[in-house]
């Protein structure tokens, strides 16, 4: 066997304050399909960005050899020129341009600046035949489904004479049939000598099509496992073995002690969601949340685990005033009474609060100050003779600045200038002041440092001790295991399990999180 197609050795990449990758090694042999596995945040995407030149040579340490030669890519164009093409999870097609125009975007078939349409269409047809897509090259991409768009992306990669194809979660948005077709195509390309790296959470897919798998955890290479000896052999590697590699770490985070809630109504169900079903806002065929039922009691912290695309955020947002997707059916009860939460104000009135996973986009008015961000969800309650009592508002903000330890010189500091942890404290303050019965926290510690995480955990515990019901969505299993009384798992929009804290292990959760239909 000849030398490896790709060798990445000792790759270390740091961002201010964070080491994203540390001494990572990856070797891809010619003509193989190689999977990269790991939890969210393990460093998979960063590694691919290093490889494709998004993080240019010089911004990382380590060596990359491609087809035997050392390479140093300045940008994506440089890596593409060598035949390394990455297809992202969110497709990068221009919807109003035709298939042919998309295939040759940035790589136009042109002479002296004028596009040669005959050549473009002829070659596009040939490429479409190769990926097995029966559409005219003139068809606008917007008219295609996601599965077909994915094929256009691959045709686009082939047009660049791809040698190494990288697919990031290629089947995450596809239905079973389209997924199967895509996986077939990947195998065909492999047989034509194109190596392929696939990032996927779907372990059964990995077993089905890959030859070896590299597992990353906390920015380090844990191991590279052989899935099968030869392309035609049966896979020997079990899903359990992959899971063990993905989660096998010691708990290195610490969690505050819980004070149990001892009110008279302790143990009463505060939030009950029944049969909640939601469709995708655009693609009405796709059911994003499928018949989910769950309960949270007063004083209880309940986790929701799931990998990206499992439908956790979609569930939370659609319950919170139908802020996501198209509601199909399901009921919500708060404190034993059924509530209709068709709008966000109705949801807030019913006693719900939702702390978003994306605080910059959905949580904060970055150009306004701490004071006004905290008051926004409870302005009607701050009225005095019909108008907002600014002095009361300010004293509330001052109180939260002290209680939550928000580090800022005054409450008139612009929120956009605060660190991630302090921004998160502002969002939490806003919702705590709205005084809900139920708080839905969506990735409340995403992107913040360890010290601030501990403070946020303390706040969450305090809320539970006061009798609030907390639904805690997180991608970090240790966090859920450390904080929650019970944990639900979701995969592909459905609940796949419910585990009490005492019985929960990372292996068990990961198994339930990777249960998919096929």
């Amino acid at each position, binding site marked *: 066997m000849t030398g490896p197609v790709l060798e990445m050795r000792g790759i270390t990449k740091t961002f201010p304050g964070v080491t994203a990758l540390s001494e990572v090694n990856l070797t891809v042999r010619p003509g193989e399909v190689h999977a990269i596995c790991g939890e969210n945040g393990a460093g998979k995407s960063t590694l691919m960005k290093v490889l494709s030149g998004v993080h240019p040579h010089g911004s990382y340490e380590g060596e990359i050899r491609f087809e035997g030669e050392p390479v140093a890519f300045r940008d994506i164009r440089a890596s593409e020129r060598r035949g390394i093409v990455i297809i992202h999870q969110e497709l990068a097609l221009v919807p109003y341009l035709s298939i042919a125009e998309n295939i040759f975007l940035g790589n136009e078939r042109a002479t002296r600046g004028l596009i040669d349409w005959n050549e473009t269409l002829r070659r596009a047809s040939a490429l479409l035949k190769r990926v097995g897509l029966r559409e005219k090259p003139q068809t606008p991409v917007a008219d295609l489904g996601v599965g077909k768009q994915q094929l256009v992306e691959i045709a686009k990669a082939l047009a660049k004479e791809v040698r190494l194809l990288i697919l990031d979660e290629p089947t995450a948005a596809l239905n079973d049939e389209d997924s199967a077709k895509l996986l077939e195509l990947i195998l065909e390309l492999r047989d034509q000598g194109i190596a392929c790296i696939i990032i996927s959470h779907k372990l059964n897919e990995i077993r089905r099509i890959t030859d070896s798998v590299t597992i990353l955890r906390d920015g380090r290479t844990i191991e590279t496992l052989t899935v099968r000896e030869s392309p035609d052999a049966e896979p020997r590697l079990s899903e359990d073995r992959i899971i063990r590699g993905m989660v096998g770490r010691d*708990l290195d985070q*610490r*969690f*505050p*002690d819980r004070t149990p809630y001892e009110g008279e109504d302790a143990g009463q169900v505060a939030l009950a969601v029944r049969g909640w079903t939601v469709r995708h806002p655009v693609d009405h065929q796709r059911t994003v949340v499928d018949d989910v039922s769950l309960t949270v009691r007063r004083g209880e912290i309940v986790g929701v685990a799931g990998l990206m695309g499992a439908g956790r955020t979609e569930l939370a947002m659609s319950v*919170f*005033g139908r*802020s996501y997707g198209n509601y199909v059916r399901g009921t919500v009860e708060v404190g034993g009474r059924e509530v209709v939460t068709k*709008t*966000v*104000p109705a*949801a*807030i009135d019913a006693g719900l609060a*939702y702390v*978003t996973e994306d605080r910059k*986009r*959905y*949580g*904060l*008015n*970055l*150009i*306004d100050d701490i004071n*006004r961000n905290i*008051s*926004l*969800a409870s*302005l*009607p309650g701050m*009225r005095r003779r*019909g*108008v*907002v009592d*600014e*002095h*009361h508002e*300010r*004293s509330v903000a*001052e109180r939260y600045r*002290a209680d939550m*330890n928000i*580090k800022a*010189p*005054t409450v*008139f500091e612009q929120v956009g200038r605060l660190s991630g942890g302090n921004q998160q404290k502002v969002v939490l303050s*806003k919702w705590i002041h709205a005084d809900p019965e139920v708080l839905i926290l969506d990735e409340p510690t995403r992107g913040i440092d360890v*010290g601030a995480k*501990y*403070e946020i955990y*303390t706040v969450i515990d305090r809320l539970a001790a006061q009798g609030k019901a907390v639904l805690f969505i997180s991608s970090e299993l240790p966090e859920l*295991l*450390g904080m929650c009384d019970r944990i639900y798992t979701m995969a592909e929009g459905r609940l796949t399990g419910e585990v009490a804290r005492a019985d929960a292990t990372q292996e068990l959760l990961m198994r339930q999180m990777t249960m998919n239909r096929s």
Partner: protein
Amino acid sequence: MTTTTTPPRSRPHEDPPRPTALTLLLDAVRGNMRQYGMLIALAFIVVLFQIWTDGTLLLPNNVSNLIQQNGYILILAMGMMIVIIAGHIDLSVGSVVAFVGAMSAVMMVRHDMPWVLALVLSLLIGAVAGAWQGFFIAYVGIPSFIVTLAGMLLFRGLTQIVLEGQSIAPFPDGFQNIAKGFIPEAGPYTQYHNPTLLLGLLAVVFLLLREWRDRRRQLAHALDVPPFGLWALKCTAITAAVVAFTLTLASFHGVPVVMLIMCALLITLGYVMRNAVIGRHVYALGGNKAAAKLSGVKDKRVTFLVFVNMGVLAALAGCVYAARLNAGTPQAGLNFELEAIAASFIGGASMSGGVGTVMGAVIGGLVLGVLNNGMSLVGIGTDYQQVIKGLVLLAAVGFDVWNKRRAGK
């Protein structure tokens, strides 16, 4: 599983150093750079033309004139500011001014309607025009630029249809007074206009009372307050400014009616934007629409009301302008939308929404107004006036962009 617990890293809350008068003043200025900057620029422009025109600019009759000349633009600018804060734009206000002026002329001149009734109906027409546009923007989701561009054509066309291409005049005296009148004189003869002195006094009392109440309530909530000396200085400055302005107006015909309308609007709208829930919701919507929606802001209703408000203000400006011209004409209000937009941006609005104050719009409008008036007094032609106003707009916003980028580093 064992989880060990450690106490949170102790981070004692560090008290910032005790603020001094100077740092507080600097903080206040820095916080509202564009507005304070523009206030200073306005003062500079006033002084410049005061010298250049050998003192004509601030003569009592010219000050009255300045207010009456710019009243309708300032009214438009206040509404436009709110529209821009909400993250939108309104290109139709010039045409709405013309349309409402035309309708008022038809009602009063052709149908002999009492002018008060006609005025009320005119404002109602403005509200309907605003609701029409607000509906498409808020509930249908068409961008405001498009809807109001369509409105600009639509209302201009309707104006010409209503007027059949001709001007209609004259208006009843009562109506003309809105733009040209002063509040009536009363009481014994003094050197000054008595009611104006009274209003000035009331204004001083009102402003000082507010300052005093604010300070007391801040103390009651245990908040930091500026030291007494600085506060007293601020009160003195406010008093001096109001007294000087009052005496200037009182030594001519007194307070123009337009000014009374403008002050009422400034106080009400400023208060609503700052203290009413809906005002806060406008800022939140302009700052981050998605976050505002998820915090319970009824985005559609707020957007709709912002445009209804703009419609009413455009109608009011339309009446004032028609009264000033003493005619409803097809060409009324041409380019008014651009003047109002320019005033808003000079006064601190941001293209992406979420920032600005109603007071800022007035300051921006006054900068343009004083420039217009001053340049006319010294005999600069309208050709050069346009060039200079364009440069001022560019410089004001350019300074702000530069200042923000510097602060961001």
